[in-house]
């Protein structure tokens, strides 16, 4: 049996490794995506005060610290059993929207655009940000500006840098400066114009990827994400909804605290990352996806005018349920429109400048769950504490975890189409990497586009001898 391995070491979630197994005829027979997660995390936090969790978890994942801060703070809110003051709730959502803008801009413009706009088979030496600067300088500049806008709003809220203590259990620790609100409002239209131009360009480009659309995780799965009481898209707060592959709602308005009734976690022997599945259906039939693609499948509507217009066109082009993982990119851009519109709504709301921003309380619940939609998908923090507030147990389910099974299946599908048993083509390696990047699992898995190919593709013969190597 021959094995193709794509392997690299990621600082954030341990190793990410892709194994593609070939049969004796040189045809792809199996593929798996393994990610190792921080081990011993639960042990590490045991005995520590629960209110330290937001900053601890934010430091553990350097890629989306804001997402962990928010999910963790919400879990702590639940332990304190407090209602977060309105201004703080809105400020947290504003921070979250800014994080969406910067994170999605990074994913699209920096990490994926080189593949998408220069071509999957273009010269790998030039298939990077530098190459993009040569061919599409305006687009890249706009992408950089959009990301910077998101980062700046984060800085304005959380002070000079991503200040881990701004978002705290019970709210936030400082109110918002009205001057900074004006500044941000003034910059919003330019950011919106950038996304609109990018979406228009993307719609024109879409048709040049028929093979990728057909083979990038293009298979039916369930989907999971947060929705509002009216079924609209929610990123900061909401209840869980699960839909089947055909779009039928199988569970709706599941309260965060009840997530474990619906989400089971299988331990895979070859991966430290657990594989969550929809419990009522069972493992592994209950495979579901999260993230931009899933959220747009789940939501009845976005709930903001421009995003809803884009969503209508998206559905008209691709159908009500979009199953190709390739369309994570398109969905991501629509979410940026939504995030900018939400920012506008929040900034226009006088309640945002309220001065009551933090509720104080002791431990009032021995257990708390906080769920948000991180840019990459549903993020769950679940803590248990003793009467004194010392952590006794923690469980984190991250977006990469939810998508674990789907990514594995996606790799198989891409490999079947693009990996030729005799020799590895750079295009094959790149398509496998590009599939993973479509899910945007973490920066380290996605740095290819900034010049490094962090994955090694090895082709080994049945006796383990190296037949070919690419990386």
């Amino acid at each position, binding site marked *: 049996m021959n094995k193709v391995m794509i392997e690299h070491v990621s600082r954030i979630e341990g190793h990410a490794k892709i194994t593609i197994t070939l049969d004796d005829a040189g045809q792809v027979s199996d593929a798996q995506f393994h990610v190792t997660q921080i081990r011993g995390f639960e042990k590490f936090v045991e005995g520590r*005060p629960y*209110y*330290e969790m937001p*900053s601890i978890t934010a430091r553990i994942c350097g890629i989306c610290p804001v997402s962990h801060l928010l999910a963790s703070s919400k879990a702590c809110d639940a332990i304190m059993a407090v209602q977060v003051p309105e201004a703080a709730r809105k400020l947290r959502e504003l921070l979250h929207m800014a994080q969406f803008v910067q994170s999605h801009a990074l994913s699209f413009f920096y990490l994926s655009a080189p593949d998408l706009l220069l071509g999957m088979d273009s010269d790998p030496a030039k298939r990077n940000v530098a190459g993009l600067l040569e061919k599409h300088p305006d687009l890249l500049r706009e992408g950089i500006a959009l990301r910077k806008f998101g980062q700046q709003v984060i800085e304005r809220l959380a002070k000079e840098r991503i200040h881990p*203590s701004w978002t705290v*259990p019970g709210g936030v*620790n400082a109110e918002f400066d009205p001057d900074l609100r004006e500044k941000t409002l003034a910059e919003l239209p330019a950011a919106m114009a950038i996304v609109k131009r990018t979406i228009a360009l993307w719609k024109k480009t879409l048709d040049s990827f028929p093979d990728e659309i057909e083979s990038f995780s293009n298979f039916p799965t369930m989907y999971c994400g947060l929705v509002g009481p009216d079924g609209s898209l929610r990123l900061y707060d909401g209840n869980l909804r699960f839909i089947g592959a055909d779009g039928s709602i199988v569970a709706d308005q599941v309260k965060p605290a009840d997530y474990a009734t619906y989400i089971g976690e299988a331990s895979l022997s070859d991966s430290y990352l657990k594989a969550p599945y929809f419990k009522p259906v069972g493992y592994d039939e209950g495979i579901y996806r999260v993230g931009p693609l899933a959220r747009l499948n789940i939501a009845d509507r976005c709930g903001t005018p421009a995003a809803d217009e884009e969503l209508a066109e998206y559905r008209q082009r691709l159908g009500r349920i979009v199953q190709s993982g390739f369309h994570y990119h398109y969905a991501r851009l629509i979410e940026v429109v939504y995030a900018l519109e939400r920012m506008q709504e929040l900034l226009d709301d006088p309640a945002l400048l309220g001065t009551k921003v933090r509720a104080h309380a002791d431990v009032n619940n021995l257990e708390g769950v906080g769920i948000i939609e991180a840019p990459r998908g549903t993020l769950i923090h679940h803590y248990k504490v003793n009467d004194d*507030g*010392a952590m006794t147990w923690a469980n984190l389910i991250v977006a990469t975890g939810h998508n674990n099974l789907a990514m594995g299946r996606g790799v198989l599908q891409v490999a079947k189409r693009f990996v030729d048993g005799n020799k590895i083509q750079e295009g094959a390696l790149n398509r496998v990497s590009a599939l993973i990047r479509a899910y945007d699992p973490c920066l380290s898995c996605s740095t290819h586009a900034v010049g490094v190919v962090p994955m090694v593709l090895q082709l080994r013969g049945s006796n383990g001898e190296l037949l070919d190597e690419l990386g």
Partner: protein
Amino acid sequence: MTEKVKVRIDGEVIAATPGQTILEVARANDKYIPALCYMEGLSAVGACRLCMVEVAGVARLLPACTTPVQEGLAVNTSSPQLQSYRKIALELLFAERNHVCAVCVSSGHCELQSLAQEHGITYIRYPYNFPKLAVDTTHPRFVLDQNRCILCSRCVRTCDEIEGAHVWDVSGRGIQSRLVSELKRPWGEATTCTSCGKCVQACPTGAMAEKGWGVEEMTKRPAVVSRLTSMREGQ
């Protein structure tokens, strides 16, 4: 009026009161000597060894916080050798326990952290001890994280000498030394504790903190504790 004695600190002749320590004289005359376990208003114990100075005619280094001045004493507060000794002392403090500034409530307001910055410490040359230490969360308002304790005993002296409750002690020896409340009872069960919180204010690191604060949120006011002594002495 007591007779003054003449001492030299870094070459400058200073009139001091007999019985004052080198550190006290230096501070009163705007001469900087780093110190960590010393706190104004408390007895000096010479535990941290950061205030070591060179004294003319004495072969070994002396702690400024416990050495009384004498007529004619000539003190040198900084030299490459002192710098390197102080650096070693600080690095050993970091290596002994689990100091993770990135997740500490006192980051940005920590005396250990700022001394490290002042001495240009960017990494620790000694292997970390990584002890497994508990966090005492039993007190309703305060928390003690042994991971961040440097055994300076400022809390011990504050509680004993100012509050008069003597909740705190250091038990064990050497690397096994641990701060304990009331014969190793959890802090929340210590019957002598008046919950005044002065120990928390005196603590130079994030080892003692008020409950509920996130990273960088805990600021201390040891000066408030020191002032209590001077107010009482003034009476």
